[in-house]
C-alpha cells in the first residue's frame, strides 16, 4: 500500500513539470480558460473510479488569478448539467454539442460544449473582447474537441487521467494566443 502511494505521487511529478508557463502576455487583453471535465452522467464512459467532474485539463492565461477561474469553471458545470438535462432524452442524440453562452458575469463570458461521451469543455472569455463571436467560439470548441479525440486515440493515454499531451497543450496555447 505504502509503495503504491509513493508511486502515484511520484508519477504526478511529471505533470507538475508541465504546468503552463506564463506566456507572452504583456500586450494581452484577452485571456481565457479552457478546461475539460469528466462526464457527469457516468453512464457513457465507464472508466476509472467513481470520481466525476474532475478536471482533465485546465489552463488559464494569465496565471496569477487562476483560482478565480477555477471557481468560475467549476460553478459553470451546474449550468452545463442544467442545459443537458433540459434537453430531454430524445433530443440528446441529435443535439448540438455546442451549448452556447452558459452565463455572463460582469467581466467574463462563459461558454460550454459537451461531447457525446459527456466530456465537458468550458471556455471563459473576457467579455470586452468583441472579436470572439459565437461562430469563433464554436470553431474553437470544435478544434478543442478534435484535439481531445487525438489524445484519446493515444493508446498510452489512460482515459480519465489528466491530459499531459504536448500536442494538446500546443493546440490550446495556439488558440489562446492569436485570439488576443
Amino acid at each position, binding site marked *: 500500500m*505504502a509503495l503504491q502511494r509513493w508511486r502515484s*505521487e511520484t508519477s504526478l511529478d511529471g505533470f*507538475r513539470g508541465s504546468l503552463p508557463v506564463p506566456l507572452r502576455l504583456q500586450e494581452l487583453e484577452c485571456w481565457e480558460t479552457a478546461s475539460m471535465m469528466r462526464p457527469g452522467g457516468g453512464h457513457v464512459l465507464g472508466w476509472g473510479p467513481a*470520481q466525476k467532474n474532475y478536471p482533465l485539463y485546465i489552463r488559464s492565461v494569465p496565471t496569477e488569478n487562476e483560482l*478565480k477561474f*477555477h*471557481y468560475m469553471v467549476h*460553478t459553470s458545470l451546474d449550468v452545463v*448539467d442544467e442545459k443537458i438535462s433540459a434537453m430531454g432524452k430524445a433530443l440528446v442524440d441529435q443535439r448540438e454539442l455546442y451549448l452556447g453562452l452558459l452565463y455572463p458575469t460582469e467581466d467574463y463570458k462563459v461558454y460550454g460544449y459537451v461531447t457525446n461521451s459527456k466530456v465537458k469543455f468550458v471556455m471563459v472569455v473576457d467579455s470586452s473582447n468583441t472579436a470572439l463571436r459565437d461562430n469563433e467560439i464554436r470553431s474553437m470548441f470544435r478544434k478543442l474537441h478534435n484535439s481531445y479525440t487525438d489524445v484519446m486515440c493515444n493508446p498510452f493515454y489512460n482515459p480519465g487521467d*489528466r491530459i499531459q499531451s504536448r500536442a494538446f497543450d500546443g493546440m490550446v496555447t495556439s488558440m489562446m494566443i492569436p485570439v488576443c
Partner: protein
Amino acid sequence: MAQCVQSVQELIPDSFVPCVAALCSDEAERLTRLNHLSFAELLKPFSRLTSEVHMRDPNNQLHVIKNLKIAVSNIITQPPQPGAIRKLLNDVVSGSQPAEGLVANVITAGDYDLNISATTPWFESYRETFLQSMPASDHEFLNHYLACMLVTSSSEAEPMEQFSKLSHEQHRIQHNNDYSYPKWFIPNTLKYYVLLHDVSAGDEQRAESIYEEMKQKYGTQGCYLLKINSRTPNRASDEQIPDPWSQYLQKNSIQNQESYEDGPCTITSNKNSHSNLLSLDGLDNEVKVDGLPNNFRTHPLQLDPSGDSSNSIDGPDHVKSASSLHETKKANAGIIHGACLTLTDHDRIRQFIQEFTFRGLLPHIEKTIRQLNDQLISRKGLSRSLFSATKKWFSGSKVPEKSINELKNTSGLLYPPEAPELQIRKMADLCFLVQHYDLAYSCYHTAKKDFLNDQAMLYAAGALEMAAVSAFLQPGAPRPYPAHYMDTAIQTYRDICKNMVLAERCVLLSAEILKSQSKYSEAAALLIRLTSEDSDLRSALLLEQAAHCFINMKSPMVRKYAFHMILAGHRFSKAGQKKHALRCYCQAMQVYKGKGWSLAEDHINFTIGRQSYTLRQLDNAVSAFRHILINESKQSAAQQGAFLREYLYVYKNVSQLSPDGPLPQLPLPYINSSATRVFFGHDRRPADGEKQAATHVSLDQEYDSESSQQWRELEEHVVAVVNRGVLPSNFHPTEYCLNSYSDNSRFPLAVVEEPVTVEVAFRNPLKVPLLLTDLSLLWKFQPKDVSGKENEEVKELVKGEPEMIGTEVVSEFLINSEESKVARLKLFPHHIGELHILGVVYNLGTIQGSMAVDGIGALPGCHTGKHSLSMSVRGRQDLEIQGPRLNNTKEEKTSIKYGPDRRLDPIITEEMPLLESEAGVKEFHIVQVSSSSKHWKLQKSVNLSENKDARLANREKGKFCFKAIRCKEEEVATQSSEKYTFADIIFGNEQIISSASPCADFFYRSLSSELKKPQAQSSLHTEKQSIEDTMRLIQKCNEVDLNIVVLWKAYVVEDSKQLILEGQHHVVLRTIGKEAFSYPQKQEPPEMELLKFFRPENTTVSSRPSVEQLSNLIKTSLHYPESFSHPFHQKSLCLVPVTLLLSNCSKADVDVIVDLRHKTTSPEALEIHGSFTWLGQTQYKLHLKSQELHSLQLKACFVHTGVYNLGTPRVFAKLSDQVTVFETSQQSSMPALIIINNV
C-alpha cells in the same frame, strides 16, 4: 433558501403588527421594575391574541382576524441609531449557532452526498430582529403608533392628575414640532388609560375607587385596572413559575435604547454558554464599538494570509472587554423576570391585552378605516373610483409603468403628513394590519397609481411592495404573485432612494414568498442582487440563503451552492462572524473535496485552517493545513512557503497547549518506507586497519542478487564444513543489510555493542526546502535478562534510558525542494533484548532563506523576533513497512494478504564472533609481465604514460600496452609444436624466469584446465576438403594463442603488520579483437534473436568463412606525421607523404586491390573543407605472398588547414588460388587523423 420555522403566511403578518406606545408614570414604572421588566416588556409575552377577533369593514362586511398580535413599546423620542442596529444584528447572528450534534440532512445530488443543515436559525433571528428594528418612515404607516397606553399606579397620590399629565405629555410629543420621532398614525391617537395596582402592597379599595373615577372620565372602553405583583419576590423562589420573558428579552433591546447604552447586556445566552465564552476570549472581539464591520476591500476569492488574523491574537484590551462582557452576561443570567407575578397575574395581563384590543384598539381602527374611506369617497367622488374600477376592468391589471429612469429626478418629492394622497396609503396600511388583504391590495394599487402619477418614487415603491405582499396574502389567491412589483420596488429603493434597509426588507419578503412557491432560482437571483459592499453581514446571510436556494432546486446545483457558500464564508469572516465563516467553508469543502480542483481545495483548506485557528479549534486547523501540504500542491513556491510557516506556527501552538501529550505525527517530508534499509555492524571502512566483517555489502552499494547468492553459498559451505558436512536445519544465512529485496520475514539478529544503521528515504514534495533538526530514530526496547529468562513485566521504553540503547542524533538534515534524500541513523544497543524501531522523530522547520519571497506574510510572530528562529515543530513519523504479498496457499492467492516485514525489529543478541576478512590489501605492484605462446612473444612495453613503478592502489585501474611479434620460424621449426616460447618484460628490479618453476608450474596447471574444454570437431567430409582448408587458413590468420602471465606483489596489512604476498594471473588471448579476462566474466544473456520464418536455402553456407574472418586477411596501417605545417600563403597545395603498410596475415598468397578513390555516397565527402585528394595512381593491384609485408608510398594533397581523416583507402583482398569466391573489402581501419597547420 433554507427551511424556516415560520411559514411565509405566518411570517409576514407577524412582521407588520399594530404598534402601540406606552407612556408610564415613574411610580408605575417602579412597580413593573420589581419584576426587572419595563411595562412594555411586561406585556410582551402576552401580546398575541389567543382567540379570533371580528370587525366590520367599510362595506359593513364581517371580517375575521386570526392570530392578531400587537406590539407595545415605550416611547423613545430618538430614532434608532444605524450603528446600534448593526451591532444588535451582529450580536443576534453570532449568538445563534448551529446546535452541536445536530443531525444534518444528507442531500444527494448527482455524485455528491452533502451534509447540510436544512435550517439556518441565525438567518431567521436576523430577519426577525431586522424587521422589528426598522425605523419608522414617512412614506408608510405600518409601524407608526396607532394608540398610546397611559399607565399610572394606584399608589400615586393623585392618579387622575397623573393621567392628565401623561395625556398632556403624549399630546406634546405627538404634536409639538420638537419631536420628529416617534411617528404617529393619525393625529387623534387612541389613548388608553391603565391603572396599575400592586396587589401585595397597595390598597385595593382605593384602586377600585380610582378605577370607577376613570371609567366615568374616560368611559369604560378607554381605561383598565391591571392588578399585578400578587406576591413578593422573596417567596418567589419557592415555586417555579415559567418565565415567558426569557425568549423575548434578548431581542428587544433596540426599543429600549437605554439598555443598549448600558453595555452589551443583551447578547443572547447561548445554549452552551461556556464553550461560547471560551471562544470569545479575545477572538470574537472583531466587533467594533461603533458596530461597523471592517470593510476590507479584498476579493472573496483571494488568499489573504495577511488579512484579519492580526486582530485575533490576544491583545490586552480585547481580553479586558471580553471579561467585562463575561461579567455582564453572568449578571444578566442571574436575573429572574417576573418574580412578583403569579400565574393569575399572567392571566390578568393576557386578559388586559385582550380587552384593550377588543374594546380599544380594534374599534379605533375600524372607526379610522371608515373615516378614511368616507374621506376618500367624498373627496374623489364615487365616479372616480367607479371609473378607475371600470378602467381597471377593461384594460386588465396592467397599468403602463413609466420606466424608472424617467422618474429618477423627482424621487425627492415629499407629501405633507395630511396630504390626501397619503390617506389612501394610511387606509391600506390599516387594512393590512388587520389582515384585510383584499381591501389593502386595492388601496395599495390605487395609491401606487397616484404616487406614480406624481412621480413620488419612494412612496410608489412602498405601495408596490405592499401591494405585492397583500396580493400574495389574499385568501384564495385570486391573482398570481406580482413579482415584478417587488422587483420594481427593490430597484427603486436601492437605486433611486438609496435606501438599502428598505430594499433589504423587500428582498427578504420577496425571497421568502418566491421560496414558498418553489421559485428558487428567482429567489437566489434576488438575494444575490442585494449583496453589496456596504454591509458584510447582510451580504453573507443573503449569499448563504442564495446557496441554499441552489441546493433546494429541483435539480440541485451543487457547485453553485458551494461557490456561494464560499462567498458567504468570506463575507462572514469580514463581518467578524468567524464561526459562521468556518461553517460555510466547511460545507463548501464537501463539494470541492477530492475532485481534482486542487487550487480551490487549497484555498478552502487554508481558510478553514485560518478560521479554525482563530477560533482555537487547533486540531481542525492542523488537519486543514496538513491537507494543503501533503496533497501534491500545485501552488507556487512562495505560497507553499507561507502555507508551511502557517502550519508550523499553528502546530507550535497546539504542542504548547499540551506539552506532555504524545508527539504529533508530522506530514512532511514523505518517507518511502519500503526503501528503508537496515545495516547491522560497523561501517566498512576499507584500509584503515579496523577489523572488518567478512561481507560484501555496505549501504553504499546497490543490492546485487548474484553476489549475495554467492556469499550465501559461501556461508553455507563454511557452516557445512564446521558441522561435518551437514547443514543444520535451523541455519539461515546471515544478512547484514536488509532491504526490500531481502527476505525480511524473520526477526534479524543484531549483536550487542554493534551499531544498527537505518537508512530512511525522505522526499520533500514541496517547492521550499525543509530543515529537519535533531533527527533520530524512535524505538521501543524490551530488555532480556542476562540469565536468558525474559522479564515477567515487559518494560516499554520509548526513547528511554540511554544505557540500554544509544541513539545517534543528526543535528541538521536539509532536504531541498522536491528532493529525495536518505538519512542514515544509528542505534547502539548496549543490552540484549528485542528492539523495535518505530519511526523517526525530528523537528520540522524551514530555512529562513525563503523569507525573501515573503510578500504574502503569515501569522504574526512568524516573521520577526525570536519566533523565526524557533519556527520548528517536534513530531514523529512512523515507519511502517508492508511485507511482500503472500501467494502460497489458496486462501492467500484468492485474497490480498501481506506477510510481515521485520527488518525494523531486530533481536539484540549476546556478543558473537564475527568472521573477519583480511582484505587489507594496500596496493599491488606489477613486477613482471611475461608471455608464453607457441607462435608469439612479447617484445616490448609501449606504454605511453611511462608507468614505471607499475603500482595499483585501492580500486585503481592501470593500463599497459605491449607489442608482440612472431617467434622466428626457425625457432618454431627447431622446437616441437608443443613447445612454448617464454618472453619476459620486467617492471621490477630483477627478472623472474617465467619459464622456470614456480611460474611455469602455475602456468601449465592453469593451461591444463583450459585444455579440458572440448575442441571443435573437424569435419570429415572429403569432398569439401579444399574449402575446409581455406577456411582453416583464413581462420588461422586471426588466431594468436598468446598467454600472458602477470606477476604481482601485494602489500597487505594484517594485524598492523605488513606482509608482502606474491602471485600471478593468466590471461589467454585467443583471437584478435576479442576481450580476454583472467577469470571468467559473467555471461550476458544472449540477445534475443528474431524469429525467422523461412527455411535456409543452402546449409553449406555455414562452411563459408564469415565476412569478419575474411576481412582480417590483410592488415593495413597508415604511417604519416601526426601534424604537418605548411605555408599556404606561399604555396596553396600541401603535399604530405603517407605510407600504407599492408601485411598478409595468412599463410596463403593473396591478391590485393587498393582503391584510393573517395566514396561519394557519404554526405561528409561533399564538404569541400573536409576533403583532401590522393595524388597519383588511384588503384593498385598487388600480390602478397604468405605473411608478406608490403609498403605503398602515397601522397595526400591538402588545400586548407584542418583535421583530416586519412583512413579512406579501401582495400580488397582475395586468395590467389581461389577464383572470385572470397573477395571482400578489408576491415575499415580506425580513423587516421592528421592535422594540417598553416605556418
